[in-house]
């Protein structure tokens, strides 16, 4: 989830009020130096370009038969891509991987990201040759099983959300938002209605306004109540013939359910607009509440959140969009349909005419994230309807446990208004002068935890958004709470030690301002004099 960057400060956003800048090594670092820079199992690793060679390779290939070249005279000479033998490559990436934190290592309570356990069965199923080794353009009679997976998953998503249809091809949540807004725009155009405005709460995730703008809409804010909810009255007041849609996140980014969602939807529909629901937080209500019952017209589902396809260090994801009866006809191509005879078909442009005439078109080259569909369906079949409801309940239980175990020591701006959903939110109010959320986060790193989401949503000062998910044990939560309590106390007491954190991580705090001011985005072979030791030592890049 969104993190503070010093460059943001220049954007005038108070993301890191401490204005921290890297300082000289502090007394806390160990005095024992090693020749290699390694610290036992904490290993330094040079860049591929410092250890690889153009003449080295980790593959053997049979030699190509010599023969005529048909390359149209565009032969290339040289690409300067270093290679590694397999032993070196396995080590390079294994050593690098060890510099990462991950769910498999411990609690990863990034609010809004739903970092839950990724079952290994899902990985195994996605790798069955019948799914992993088939081509998207194979004749459909040769991929009936794959189409069945897509179709079965589609119906699960429809049934779980109580919606009318689903577009499976969007590649991630943001892509799903785009899909939803395009459906809305197509529906409006179909009735010759050219509305220009999309309303988005200030607390919304950045992708909401970005997506609306991308579709050519003007974005306006929806004010919030002091309970952290949408201000229904203000919203009603703003609704009108120019409002194409409102985008609402429910449960919202403060981790709260919008109790008036149905009223909101009714009001928007009454004003001729559509309701887009950001489903990133579906995990809190899956199997417990059907968004269809809330009057939602479109909602993306991040399969990489609620349905546990691995985040993979930033992706890939998958963002199917469930659609209301009003929007379903406008959904994109292609989609997998099941026929009376039990057979499956991928409906593409070709048959769109008869079967799906109002489709707004195609969003991706092929059929979406098959590899994620297989994993998500495996996850869903494993949990079943009962297990999924339990997922929602445990995720909410874990979050409330954290909220109530910390509210006495950390400011919890919305705690007074009742239980939270799957996320507990805190602010940095009460910290000593010059201390902020980032200091708490970095101290958590030394404690062996991944920090929570920092400085998001923007409506809470120095926000700390904690989402434990349902796959954490009570023992883990208790240890996390103990660590966070002690850190909070230090932040309130103004313990300078916090500013030095992290001291045990592979790197101390990094200078993001330098990175942005003099961007070095690709490796440049250092000048002959440049003393790159090849041992991961710093060299004057950029």
């Amino acid at each position, binding site marked *: 989830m969104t993190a503070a*960057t010093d460059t943001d400060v220049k954007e005038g956003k108070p993301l890191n009020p401490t204005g921290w800048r890297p300082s000289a*090594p502090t007394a806390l*670092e160990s005095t024992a130096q090693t020749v290699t820079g390694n610290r036992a199992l904490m290993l330094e690793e040079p860049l591929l*370009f410092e250890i690889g060679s153009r003449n080295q390779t980790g*593959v053997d290939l049979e*030699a*190509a038969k*010599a023969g005529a070249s048909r*390359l149209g005279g*565009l032969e290339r000479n040289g690409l300067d891509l*270093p290679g*590694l033998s397999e032993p070196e490559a396995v080590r390079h990436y294994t050593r690098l*991987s*060890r*510099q990462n*934190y*991950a769910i498999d*290592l411990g609690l990863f309570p990034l609010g809004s990201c739903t*970092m839950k356990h990724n079952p290994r069965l899902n*990985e*195994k199923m996605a*790798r069955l*040759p019948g799914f992993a*080794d088939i081509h*998207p*353009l194979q*004749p459909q009679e040769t991929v009936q099983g794959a189409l069945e997976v897509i179709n079965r998953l589609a119906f699960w998503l429809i049934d779980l959300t109580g919606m009318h249809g689903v577009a499976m091809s969007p590649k991630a949540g*943001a*892509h799903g938002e785009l899909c939803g807004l395009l459906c809305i*725009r197509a529906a409006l155009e179909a009735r010759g209605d050219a509305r220009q405005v999309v309303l988005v709460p200030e607390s919304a*995730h950045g*992708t909401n306004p970005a997506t609306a703008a991308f579709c*050519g809409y003007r974005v306006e804010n929806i004010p919030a109540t002091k309970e952290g909810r949408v201000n229904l009255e203000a919203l009603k007041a703003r609704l009108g013939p120019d409002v194409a849609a409102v985008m609402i996140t429910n449960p919202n980014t403060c981790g709260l359910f919008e109790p008036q969602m149905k009223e909101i939807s009714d009001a928007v529909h009454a004003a001729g607009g559509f309701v887009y629901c950001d489903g990133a937080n579906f995990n809190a209500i899956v199997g417990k*509440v059907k968004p269809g019952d809330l009057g939602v017209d479109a909602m993306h589902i991040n399969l990489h959140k609620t349905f546990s396809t691995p985040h993979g*260090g*930033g992706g*890939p994801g998958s963002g199917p969009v469930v659609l209301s009866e009003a929007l379903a006809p406008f959904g994109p*191509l292609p989609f997998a349909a099941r026929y009376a005879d039990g057979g499956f078909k991928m409906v593409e442009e070709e048959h769109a005419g008869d079967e799906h005439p109002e489709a*707004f078109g*195609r*969003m991706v080259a*092929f*059929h979406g994230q098959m*590899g*994620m569909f297989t994993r998500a369906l495996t996850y869903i079949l494993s949990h079943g309807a009962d*297990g999924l409801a339990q997922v929602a*309940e*445990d995720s*909410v*239980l874990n979050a409330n446990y954290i909220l109530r175990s910390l509210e006495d020591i950390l400011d919890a701006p919305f705690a007074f208004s009742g*239980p939270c959903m799957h996320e507990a939110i805190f602010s940095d109010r009460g910290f000593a002068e010059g201390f902020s959320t980032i200091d708490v986060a970095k101290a958590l790193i030394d404690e062996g935890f*991944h920090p929570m989401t920092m400085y*998001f949503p923007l409506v809470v000062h120095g926000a700390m958004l904690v989402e434990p998910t349902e796959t954490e044990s009570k023992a883990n939560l208790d240890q996390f709470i103990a660590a966070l309590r002690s850190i909070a106390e230090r932040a309130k007491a103004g313990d300078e030690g916090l500013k*030095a954190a992290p001291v045990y991580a592979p790197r*101390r705090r*990094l*200078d*993001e301002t330098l990175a942005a001011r003099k961007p070095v985005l*690709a490796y440049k072979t250092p000048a002959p004099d440049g003393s790159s030791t090849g041992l991961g030592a710093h*060299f004057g890049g950029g």
Partner: protein
Amino acid sequence: MRYLPLSEDDRSAMLTTIGANSVDELFRDVPDGLLLKGPVAGLPLHASEMAVERDLSAMARKNMVAGEVPFFLGCGAYKHHVPASVDHLIQRGEFLTAYTPYQPEIAQGTLQVLFEFQTQVARLLGCEVANASMYDGSTACWEAIGMARRITRKSKAIISSGLHPHYVSVCRTMAKFTGDTLATELPALDAKTDAERLIAAIDGETSCVVVQYPDIFGRITDLTPIAEAAQAKGALLIAVVTEPVALGLVKAPGEMGADIVVGEGQSIGVGLQFGGPYVGLFATREKYVRQMPGRLAGETVDAEGKRGFVLTLSTREQHIRREKATSNICTNSGLCALAFSIHLTLLGEKGLTELAKLNHARACEAAERLSAIPGVRLVNDSFFNEFTLELPVEARPAVHAMVEKGVLGGVSLGRLYPGVDALKNGLVIAVTEVASEEDIGALEAALKEVCQ
């Protein structure tokens, strides 16, 4: 439930701490009647790992596996042999189950990989900088057109008829809503590409020219004249590469003057996977970097002066810039980028060049043998590992007929351009290192029969 650590005792102990009598009390904000009592009706309940494995395996068995038959499909997705170590490494929990590296002190693994990926992609495509990946080639292509609009402040994109028709559809979809105008045409079964037409079409309104290289028929054109013509009129050249392995042997678009080079990275490290997840490659000139979509990893130093990496220039991105962002992309294709990077590291220049040579040699051999079949014409005079045949019969039924013989014999243009008569006899054949002598023989035999 094997995935849920809380015991009943834990749950009640926690409720006590919270001060609630039941979990449903925590859902009190949900209006009455909307909170479901019990599991969603009509859906199955939880199942054992063994049962789920059987269910999925049964569906998997219904598909014809590329690796188990003579296989010749391409058109934007290619089957190559991926070393076993790639899949082993991307399954390291520290890569697989990490999030976007927002806490750089404990994400140096992912960040260094992205920095290396960016460098590899830039060098492969012949550009100065690349980003940390897009969803796939088709969305990268669209984002490039949008970026060209922002840079040139013009909105007419001239699309080569050699661009993958699905990519064209994606661009058309988006253009409908952003007001870009796209000049598109259908391809012709001809050895000559539409380079000249494109050059002629460029005018003062043009934001960019979009050319696929090698193109949908496998043809290879020199991009230099197009780049010069475009730049002369203040437009950008966007090159699209769907088979990056080709760049082990043919000039990179960047080397020929392309301003933005996008690509589908699937064929290196990722695998077929029925169309996704894949990995979009996106590279350009350093001077355009602040208009670039997507994440960027950059080098910096830590408090001890040690080299480290962070996500940077995020003021282009939605999470900072919101409605003013260069793109709405958030989650990208990180793990596929890792697979791409590992495979390319194993190959290196030496391996990639050998691999490309092997692909080309196999393709040349196949082209020769297949075009010798009576009535079959080879459309291309240039190609890398993919070429187009004109059959004496309609290609689409021919493909289905070959399936009956257990051969996945290429992609028919009837599938890609439904209803276009002039193309219906066209068959696109991709031949990579996985196609053995026997496979090519099987295709030859099958095609001979169906062409009678």
